[in-house]
Every structure is written in C-alpha cells, then in structure tokens.
C-alpha cells in the first residue's frame, strides 16, 4: 500500500467505526456544542471535543448537519461546515457517491440557511454535474446570494451569446433582468457597462437604495481625534433651524443633494463656506435625513467612508468605526437596525483626522438601507 494512503485508510476505518456508533442524540449534543462557540474562543474546548463526532457521522446525517447552519453564528457555522466537508469528502472518496436526492432537496429548500444551501449544491455537483442546468435558472431571485450569483452570471452569458448573434433586444432584456437581480458589485459593474454600451440608462442610486438627500452641518472640532467621542449638539437634539457653535463660529443645517452616480455625499464640498480652508483637517460634520417606513421592519444600514463614522437611527447609536483612511470598500460597514413605522431619523457623524496624504483628502460617505442580502429598501412616504 502506498505509504501516504495507509494512514488515510486506517483513519477511514476508524471514522467508519465512529460513524456506526454515533447516535442521533450524540449528534444533537455535538451540534449543540458546535453552535455554542462564541467570541474570544469561548466554547472552543467543548467544540473541539464534539467536532470529531459530527465529522464522523454517517452520510445520511449530512442534511441534519446542514440544517444546523440555520441561525448559527459565523464562528459556529465554520465548525459545522468543516464537519460537513469532512463527511462528504470521506464518503465520496470511499464510496464514490453522495446522497443526491437529499442534497438536491436541501438545495431547493429556501427556508434553509443560504450558505448551507450553497454548500449542499457544491457537493451535489460533484456527483450530479447536470443539476446545474436544472437548478440555476430558478435562482434569479433566490435569497442565497451565492446561488443567485450563478443565475445572474448565466443571464450575462446568455445575453452575450444573444448579442453575438445580433439579437440585441434579447441581449438587453436578459441583461436588464440580471441587473435587477444582481447584488454583487462586480456583476453590477459588468452589467452597467453592457447596458450602457447598448445606450440604456442604469441608476445605481435607485438600484441599491443609496440615500442622496441630506441636511448637513459643520465643521466641529476634531483636534487630536478627540471629537469622535465628543457629544456635539446634533447628537442631543435636531432642529433644522438651529444655529450651533462650530469649530470656527456659528453653523446651521444646509441642504445637500449628492449628484454622484454612486451616491457619495461630499461634506467637504457641502461645508466649504464654513471651513477655515479647503479640505481642512481635524474637523467633524454631521448629516441627517428622514426615512419613512410603512411598517416596523429589520433592515441593514450599510455605509462606506474612509473617515471615522458614527450612525444613529432614531437617536440610538447603531454603528461606530473609529478608523481613519482604512479603505472605502462598498458596503464597508453593515449595521443591523429596526425601522419603526412612520418617520425615522438617520444621523451620521463623519470625522476627519490630521493626516495630509493625498489619499486622505476626503470627508464623505455613502449610506443605504437594505435587507440582509443587499436589496434596496427605499424610503416610502
């Protein structure tokens, strides 16, 4: 026997014995331990003891492992997914197959965890590559981002084939469908270019629910970055007609409407008359807006800024990042929040430090309200 394969074979036999002796109750206990892990390494010891049992179950228990991903915190999810992978890898190697029907059923159950469904799909493809043809076209509105992505990619490709065949109307129809469904930035960018090349208008602000109309006030002082934790008047109360003491004198709320195609709200430009000099450092600006919701609902408030920021919803601090010039990845910060029925007030605090490098010449932000997969939730009066 190959020297390298020998320990694998022994391990496989041991795993098989373990699998045979792992009862449903044992698996429940193991999954409970895996789901109990938390920050700072909490629960690692118990999880480490439980993981071999979860990873040694008979393959018929894989749907239970996958189902345990629903509601699992991100750390627990990784404990569980590595168990799924270990079981499937072992069984596929030893037996050459996996339970196709059970995996397919799981993939199609939209009530399961989105990532768990994707995981099941990838194992399914290893034994049933043709499942792709049947399943992917159904996923354009799927709640699993990674499954939806495949459907969008398929529409993009079909559109390109139609365009190559000189069926431009068909291509545009496919790409518009894909654009509406797309949630990943790279696909949105690709589709924006494809549609613009065909003379079609695309509106990212509308597509993503970026908020562009604000009231802004400032500057306030942020010398030595102390202003981040200083509670200035806009954090205490809001009156659109109030006059406040700013860094260099009295300041008032002014209307700001971003014309940026990506909804960037430029506070340096908005407050230029109140700044001591262009792109003044060590300043703070606030922006606020009303957001109307017909119902109470859970949302995400996603924002992007290279400045340090705080965000309040109806006076409650929902997000805070004392990070200066650490990047501007789209949807950089994601805060869970609950809108109340009627009028909600969003307040953003944007802080600039003393850095003077060219890449720090920004006092701006992007902000949108969306669901957990990034679908826009517009303000509705």
């Amino acid at each position, binding site marked *: 026997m190959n*020297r*390298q394969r020998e*320990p*694998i074979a022994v*391990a496989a036999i041991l795993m098989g014995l373990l699998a045979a002796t792992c009862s449903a109750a044992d698996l429940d206990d193991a999954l409970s331990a895996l789901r109990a*892990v938390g*920050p*700072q*390494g909490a629960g*690692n*010891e118990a*999880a*480490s003891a439980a*993981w*071999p049992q979860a*990873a040694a179950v008979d393959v018929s228990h894989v749907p239970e492992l996958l189902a345990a991903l629903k509601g699992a915190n*991100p*750390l627990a*999810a*990784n*404990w569980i*997914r*590595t*168990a799924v*992978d*270990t079981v499937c*890898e072992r069984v596929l190697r030893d037996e050459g197959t996996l339970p196709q029907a059970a995996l397919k059923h799981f993939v199609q159950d939209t009530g399961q965890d989105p*990532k768990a469904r994707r995981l099941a799909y990838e194992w399914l493809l290893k034994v049933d590559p043709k499942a792709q043809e049947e399943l992917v076209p159904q996923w354009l509105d799927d709640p699993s981002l*990674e499954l939806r*992505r495949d459907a969008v990619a398929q529409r993009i490709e079909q559109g390109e084939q139609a365009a190559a065949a000189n069926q431009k109307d068909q291509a545009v129809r496919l790409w518009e469908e894909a654009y509406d469904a797309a949630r*990943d930035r*790279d*696909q949105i960018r690709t589709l924006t270019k494809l549609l613009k090349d065909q003379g079609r208008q695309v509106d990212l602000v509308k597509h993503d629910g970026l908020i562009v109309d604000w009231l802004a006030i400032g500057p306030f002082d942020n010398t030595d970055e102390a202003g981040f934790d200083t509670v200035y008047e806009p954090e205490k109360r809001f009156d659109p007609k109030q006059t406040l003491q700013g860094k260099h004198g009295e300041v008032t709320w002014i209307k700001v409407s971003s014309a940026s195609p990506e909804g960037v709200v430029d506070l340096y430009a908005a407050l230029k008359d109140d700044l001591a000099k262009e792109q003044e450092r060590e300043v703070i600006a606030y922006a606020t807006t009303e957001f109307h919701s017909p119902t109470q609902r859970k949302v995400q408030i996603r924002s992007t800024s*290279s400045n340090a920021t705080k965000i309040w919803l109806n006076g409650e601090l929902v997000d805070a*990042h*004392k*990070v*200066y*010039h*650490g*990047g*501007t*990845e789209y949807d*950089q910060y994601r805060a869970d929040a609950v809108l109340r029925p009627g009028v909600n007030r969003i307040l953003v605090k944007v802080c600039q430090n003393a850095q003077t490098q060219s890449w720090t010449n920004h006092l701006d932000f992007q902000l949108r309200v969306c669901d957990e997969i990034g679908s826009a939730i517009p303000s509705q009066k």
Partner: protein
Amino acid sequence: MRRDRQRYSLAEVDDPGSTATVIHMIKKTQVYVILLAALVATSAGADWLQFRGTDNTSCCEEQGLPTEFSEGKNVAWKVDLPGRGPASPIVIGDRIFVTGSSGARQDRLHLLALSADDGSTIWHRQLWATGHTEANSMGSVANNTPASDGKLVFAFYSSNDLACFDLDGNLKWLRGLASDFPTTRNDVGMASSPLVVGDVVVVQCENQGESFVAGIDKHTGLTRWQIPREHSAIWSSPTVLRGKTTEDDVVLLHGRSALTGHAWQTGKELFRYETSVHTVASVTTRGNRIYLPANGLHVLQYDPASHSLEPLWVERKLRGGNSSPVVFSNRVLRVRNPAILSCADLETGRKLWDVRLEGAIWATPLVAGDYAYVASYEGNVFVVHLGDKGKLASKNFVGKGVLASPVAAGGALYLRNDTQLLKIAAP
C-alpha cells in the same frame, strides 16, 4: 543485554565473520534503527514550517535543487488551486499545506493538504470569512502563509480568521478575531503571517483600527496575551529570534516607528529600536544578530542577558523593496528597486555585487546551496549563482502572479503562482 548492544560498533557490523549470525542480525537491526532515526531527523529538519522557513531565514540546506526548470523539465507536478493567494506553502513530511481564497467577495477560505509525491489533494477544508475581505487585486484574503509546529497547522487569513487543524484535517479550534475586534482591517488586506514559537501562535493585527498583537495558545486557541500596537498598517510578519532554548526565543515585531522584541510567553516588551521600519519586508536573524529592513539595512547585536541591542552598522544603499533580507554564509542579500539583487558583506555592509533582474519582486529570495531563487510577480524565477560575483544562471517562467516566496523541502522546490502550485525536482 543493553550493555552488550552498546559494545557493537558500525565497523564490527561491517565484518560478517566477527560474530554469531543471530547477534549479527541484532546488530544489523540496530544499524537500521540508527539509520532510520537519522533519516527521520533529516526529514524533520527538512520541513518548512512557516513563512520564510522554520526559523524565518529563507535559507535551507537542500543541495542539488534544479537550477533550470520549465514544462517538461524538472517540473515534477503542477496543480490548480481552488483559491488565489500570495501565501507560501509550508511542508511537513510528505504533505504540502497551502491556503487560498475564492468567491466574488473572496470570502471562501481554503486550506489544502497535498501529497508531495504527486500533488493530489489529501484533504481540503473551507471556512467562510467572518471578517473583512477587502484586498488589493494582486493579493487575496489568503495573504498570510500558514504556520505549523509539525503537528498542528495554523491557517490565518486577512479576514482575521485563525484556524487550527491537525495534519489529517481535523479541526482543533477556531478564532474569528474580527468578531472580537471588528475594526481590525486595512484597505489592501492584512498580510502578516502567523508565527509559532513555544506554545503560542503569534498574530500581528497592526492596522488603522483596533491594532494589536496577540499570543494565542496553540493547544486551546485562547488568547494568552495581547498587546496594543500603533494605529498604523503593517504587513510585515512576526519573526523569531532563536535563543539557546525555546524558552529564550524572542518575537520580533515591526512597527512603523520601531522594531520591538517580546517574550513569547507573555508578550512583554524586552527591547525597542526606534527607526522608520519597513512596513512590508520583515526582519531576519542569525544567531543574536538582527538584520532589519528600514531606511537602509540596520544590523543589530542582541545581548540576551540584558535584552539590549547594539547597533553594528547601517547601510542606506541596502534599502530594499518589499522582500525581506536573506543572510547566508558571510553575505546578505537584498532586492532593491527596480529588480536589482544586491549582495553585501555581512560584517561591514559593503556592497559586493548587483545582478539586475526583471519585473516586480515581492517574494523573498530563497537561498539553497550556491544559488538564490528570486521570483517576480510576472512569473519568472531567476536563479542566481552566489559566487564572488553574482551571476544569473537561468530565468524560468512558472506562470503569472507570483507573490509567494519560494519554498524548499525534501529535495524539492515549491513555487506558487496566482492559481497553481508547482513542485520543482530532478526526476
């Protein structure tokens, strides 16, 4: 019996007529045991356990590695990887461990164990990133080279996920440091590789947000110690300064304004050397000497009794690029921009020779025998003969996107391009 065994020498065993057959067989068994032990020791010594090698020196004792390679010539195997990444592989016995990241958001984190024999996948584990996954398009979330103590593998990613597996792919523990420190990130991706020293895994999360270095217990995954750091991005990696015993090992850390030395047991700062330190290249050591890439190459003598440093020399001309210095024989190598391999005298810093190469060089050169292997991002591996004057021996294309530093173990060279891992070995 034990005493009798000790009396037999290898010379006696070689003399077939000197003893009775049964005793001769016992002696032969003893010799096999000795030879096997020597073989095991050599094999273990040949492991490549972390970034820039087990001692972070980028040097190895491998002899006779191919100096020319291409498709069909000395390429033992080449495999596609499921994820991208600048991370170098590590080698433990006959297994290669390599990380990668994939997906639209680069949030699929991979760790694979490959067979050194044929490159086949022995096991493959995946994690979902729990922290930020933004990364420069050249890099990925698998910027950080994994580390090992020979029994456990510690995979660390730019998302600040840290996972411990045994060599058979069994998960031992997980940390999502992003859940503990959500603002720990930078806009081009974190890249400091973990360092195993003593019983801890040292992770350097030095950045504009929550900035720290932590010593994580390698058995439990719990934080043994954590020290605050400057709020400034660092991509350099923690480096070990070996002591007389493991207890005496010291962890060297780059900060933007100082190199600091720390006790691995507690994180306690033992010494500090203030200068404008390189933020990407990492320090290297030999004995108690420290070779620090900064605004030039700074050479420091460390006194373990007093934990003090004595500056020996600084050579501004050896201010290099992003790859780390390599010390070999009585020389030191630096890659200077644009793509110049410089060799200097170790005692004086006096430059001895330059060899002009091509391309963007991020990877740290590997020194094996009389040759340096220098990889460019464009995919060329330059083999330079290290004589009195450096001489380019060959230029070998291995595929675009090489950021990973070359690795040598078990008589082979391992190279990673953007999407593949290659084993280079004589047939």
